[in-house]
């Protein structure tokens, strides 16, 4: 019997549990040179807002030990251009599309969600209540349970397909926020967005990023992400997409065992553009070798 590497997240069936983290894989076109984007479990596109955004002033990236800080700031083409110019490519390649959505206000998020509900080619939305690099919106909604709850409820009213909330690690108690999102109608959670950090340019005696702080990603944050996935799964039982520092199959497996039903890969794409197909192949090989029927049988097995 062939190993079953399919995954299920908030009612969404995926052919495998691997997808890119929003903002690290553009709109799928950029990596099409290396493999067909339809091979992935899903494609999560760049954070999309109602109107186009310019994003932050460069430099936007600083390398740190085993990680990178970024402060891109939601540069994107806006929801209309996404639908007219970017979505057709993903549909043509038979991708399961998850759109990460963001905005300055509750109404902004609701408007983007309503517009995407009209598009059959969009399978789910990932509500970004955790972007650390914009002044308004983003993380402001994700740092307390009450504001997260209001936002998720408003998006849920507009969007009938699976709704995933992407949470920030920059909070006192992530279990509380996770619980509030699930109680307000989120079908699944993505854990975690980047960890706020900083780098100083010692020659110029000021923060290297013009925005001062940025979001840390890469192998440096993997233990933080794993711990949060584990705690939230244990406390809530919610469907979780695990993300943070995954760079090989074994890393992905750790997240599954900690309670994630699927994983996202971000920074590792930058230094190994083949990392996601490698992880997908790794799941198949692991299940066959260990005579395990399905990836689903491994979700949360490490929880004590």
């Amino acid at each position, binding site marked *: 019997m062939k190993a079953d590497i399919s995954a299920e997240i908030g009612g969404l069936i995926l052919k495998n549990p691997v997808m890119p983290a929003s903002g690290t894989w*553009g709109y799928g076109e950029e990596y099409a040179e290396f493999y067909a984007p339809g091979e992935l479990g899903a494609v999560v596109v760049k954070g999309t807002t109602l109107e186009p955004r310019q994003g932050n002033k460069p*430099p*936007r*990236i600083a390398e740190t030990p085993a*990680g990178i800080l970024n402060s891109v700031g939601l*540069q994107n083409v806006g929801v209309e251009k996404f639908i007219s110019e970017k979505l057709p490519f993903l549909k043509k390649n038979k991708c399961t599309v998850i759109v990460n959505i963001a905005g300055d206000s509750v109404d902004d998020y609701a408007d983007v969600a309503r517009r995407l509900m009209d598009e059959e080619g969009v399978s789910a939305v990932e509500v970004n209540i955790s972007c650390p690099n914009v002044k308004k919106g983003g993380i402001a909604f994700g740092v307390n349970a009450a504001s997260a709850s209001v936002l998720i409820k408003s998006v849920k009213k507009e969007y009938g397909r699976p709704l995933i909330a992407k949470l920030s690690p920059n909070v006192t108690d992530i279990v509380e926020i996770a619980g509030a999102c699930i109680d307000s109608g989120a079908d699944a959670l993505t854990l975690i967005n980047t960890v706020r950090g900083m780098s100083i340019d010692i020659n110029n005696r000021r923060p290297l990023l013009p925005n001062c702080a940025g979001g840390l990603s*890469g192998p440096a944050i993997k233990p933080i992400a794993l711990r949060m996935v584990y705690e939230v799964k244990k406390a809530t039982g919610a469907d979780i997409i695990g993300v943070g520092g995954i760079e090989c199959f074994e890393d992905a497996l750790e997240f599954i065992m900690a309670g994630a039903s699927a994983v996202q890969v971000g920074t590792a794409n930058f230094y190994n*553009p083949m990392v996601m197909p490698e992880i997908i192949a790794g799941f198949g090989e692991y299940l066959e070798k260990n005579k395990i029927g399905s990836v689903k049988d491994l979700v949360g097995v490490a929880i004590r």
Partner: protein
Amino acid sequence: MNFHDGLSGEKIFFGLSEVINIKEIVRETFLIEISSSSQLAKSEPGQFVYIIPKMQKRTVLPRPLCIADADSETVKLIFKIRGKGTLCLSELGKGDKISVMGPLGTGFPLPREPVLLAGGGLGAAPLYFLAKKLRNNKKTSLLLGFKNSDEAYFIDEFKSIAKNVFVCTDDGSLGAGGNVVEKAGEIIKNEKVICACGPRPMLKGLSDFAGKKGLRIFVSLEERMGCGVGACLGCVVKIRRGGKEEYQRVCKEGPVFDGLEVVY
């Protein structure tokens, strides 16, 4: 980390290359020659390759290196030690295998009209590749600027492929004294186009000069880079076109841009 072999794309090679030669051509500046591929052989001047340093110094990102020459046998890259990643690369030896992605980005056009190639410091390297491709254009002149004679490299190589090679140094220790921007004003005659690579103040100065003189100018820019293929929007530069400003990607639309459109 494991890499797929032979799974690179039609245009972009991604896999292991062998270090054929590496040498320090001037202090802390290295010429590294690596084995080529069908995709790398089609590199264009101004494009770059992404080299992934071994992670012994806890680096994660690849390093963008300019292509100084490329054919079906080898690819020549030049880099200067700037930090941990380039330090790792400088420690490579003959026969080592390194992970390479490229060619990436949009390079220089190949002008048919009289053209001045202006390079500052490390920025001279991609112009060597460009000068070679422009060998049929007899109206190509070169202006190479360095801090001092100790930092100058490739002068004989440039002279072997181009007739008009002007060298200047900030302290006058080699060629004329002065910088590239000052010298460009003195040597330019009937050139219609400038192709330039070097520090940003030099590129700004040359762009201002070209604007005043009504010349076209193409500049090769650097920025801190993430994915190298246009996905992460990490390495942007502000471009003004038709009265509108927008961020464009140094790794995709660039690294070569119309110098008159760059908001420096």
